[in-house]
């Protein structure tokens, strides 16, 4: 059995959960078994819809003591269920919850863990999982040598497909033990698309000259339903918040489309974004290293080019 951890926040299922469900279902097929899910925390969403993504059954843990993330409690709940249903592969998203939970789960279940998987395992010679290493500059094939295996899947690395199937839903009461972490508050930036989940990202660098020009980035992002990002100096200068910093020492992302505006494309920046499916670079310097990593590019001045792009997108969207 394959067990997929379905992540939610404030009752809303995270986008990455559908991706891990599809991945888990495909993996189950590879192993000639079935995939089930576990969701921890209350949600009003119809969990039977996870059948659409290939899960046979979803176990729902609703106990209020789980409403906030305490890694060891989640570990207890997931490993408890895994044992009960004899799951020998567990799949999570490599998001903020997965990063907090997967390592401890690996210890608890004596299960080898691969963090940052980007493809289904290769079963031709044992169980080997391709993962991103050197901050996106290369891949490694990691062999898991334990009976039970845990895979933490990088976001935006597996295609989501849907059918009409429905999943069985069952309440599952788990014992998480005594909490060690108390969540005192959460602050969410309302209406913003989380960078790690975005399929389109518009990103600005020092070429924008100052925070007063960021309207060019945010307007395009808004039109495209995109998240905004920036290069490291931009965050260090305080032009943009730190959580937007992408690259080797910031967030690593892999959206379908990454639009880099006024970013030179230093190796440390590329490391965090080069897994993006399509890269567009707008830079006035034809020698900017970013063009070597790009799919489409415009050599030109941001302040002339960006307003025209914004107009063309408005046209496309019929605005």
């Amino acid at each position: 059995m394959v067990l997929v951890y379905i992540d939610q926040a404030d009752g809303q299922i995270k986008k990455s959960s559908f991706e891990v469900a599809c991945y888990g279902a495909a993996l189950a097929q590879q192993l000639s078994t079935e995939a089930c899910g576990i969701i921890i925390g209350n949600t009003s969403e119809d969990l039977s819809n996870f059948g659409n993504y290939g899960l046979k059954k979803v176990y729902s843990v609703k106990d209020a003591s789980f409403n906030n993330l305490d890694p060891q409690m989640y570990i207890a709940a997931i490993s408890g269920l895994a044992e009960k249903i004899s799951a020998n592969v567990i799949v999570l998203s490599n998001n903020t919850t997965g990063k907090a939970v997967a390592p401890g789960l690996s210890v608890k279940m004596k299960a080898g863990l691969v963090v940052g998987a980007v493809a289904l395992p290769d079963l031709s010679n044992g169980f080997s999982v391709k993962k991103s290493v050197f901050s996106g500059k290369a891949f490694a094939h990691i062999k898991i040598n334990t009976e039970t295996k845990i895979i933490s899947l990088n976001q935006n690395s597996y295609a989501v497909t849907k059918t009409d199937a429905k999943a069985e839903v069952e309440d599952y009461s788990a014992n998480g033990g005594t909490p060690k972490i108390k969540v005192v508050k959460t602050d969410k930036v309302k209406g913003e698309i989380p960078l790690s989940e975005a399929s389109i990202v518009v990103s600005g660098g020092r070429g924008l000259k100052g925070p007063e020009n960021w309207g060019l980035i945010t307007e395009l992002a808004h039109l495209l339903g995109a998240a905004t990002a920036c290069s490291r100096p931009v965050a260090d200068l305080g032009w943009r918040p730190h959580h937007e910093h992408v690259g080797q020492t910031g967030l690593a992302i892999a959206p379908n489309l990454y639009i880099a505006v006024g970013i030179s494309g230093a190796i440390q920046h590329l490391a965090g974004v080069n897994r993006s499916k399509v890269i567009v670079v707008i830079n006035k310097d034809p020698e900017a290293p970013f063009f070597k990593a790009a799919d489409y590019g415009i050599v030109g001045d941001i302040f002339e080019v960006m307003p025209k792009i914004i107009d063309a997108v408005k046209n496309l969207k019929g605005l």
Partner: protein
Amino acid sequence: MKILVCISKTPDTTAKIAFTDNNTKFAADGVQWIINPYDEWYALIRAVEFKEKDPSTIIHLVNVGLAENDPVIRKALALGGDEAIRINYDGKDPFAVASQIANIAKEGGYDLILTGKETIDYNSSSIGGMIAAILDMAFISHAIKLDINGNIATAVREIEGGEETDEALLPLIVSCQKGMAEQRIPNMKGIMGARTKPLKVVEPAAVDEYTSIASFEMPPAKAGVKLIPADNPAELVRLLHEEARVI
């Protein structure tokens, strides 16, 4: 307060990434080695800041690796820390590495264990969470702020689309990322002092390895950029819509 900071050695961020031995080994020839930036800039410097506020704080550094790691450990000692422990073990499996550190941590009686959020080479962000589970300690991952008041820690961690503030009692393990501390460079006094600070080498315990690296692979080269004239950005939008189908 007694703090243990986990220090890893990684290739410099500009190092050329290539592999040898039929793509099974990282080509380390000529590579400059640095302290993993997350360990240095955030975990270690935050520990140093705690010590500056309360000089009775004791900071130990721990590294898992062979003697070739000593220069990087000395560099870390130049930034701060009272002594370092190197566990003479060459494994790459995160569980094995975490088990080695947990052995040291168990004996040391640390109130706080800090790690970087991940290393920039294997990107496994596993060590902190694994040590926590091995020693049954509380764990806060990917913290961007950490304050300690008596035996209560308050940490802010990044979550999708926002931040979360957590409280926990010491002893505690925290993995650190940007926001935690301000990057600094070692001064002359630190560099001189680091030479005489104790660097203890301990032999590894027998531990299990759950995973092994079978091989490496470079990403496929990009086909080359398609340039669109600057006076016709509408063409870019058309291509993204019709050819790449991403908008």
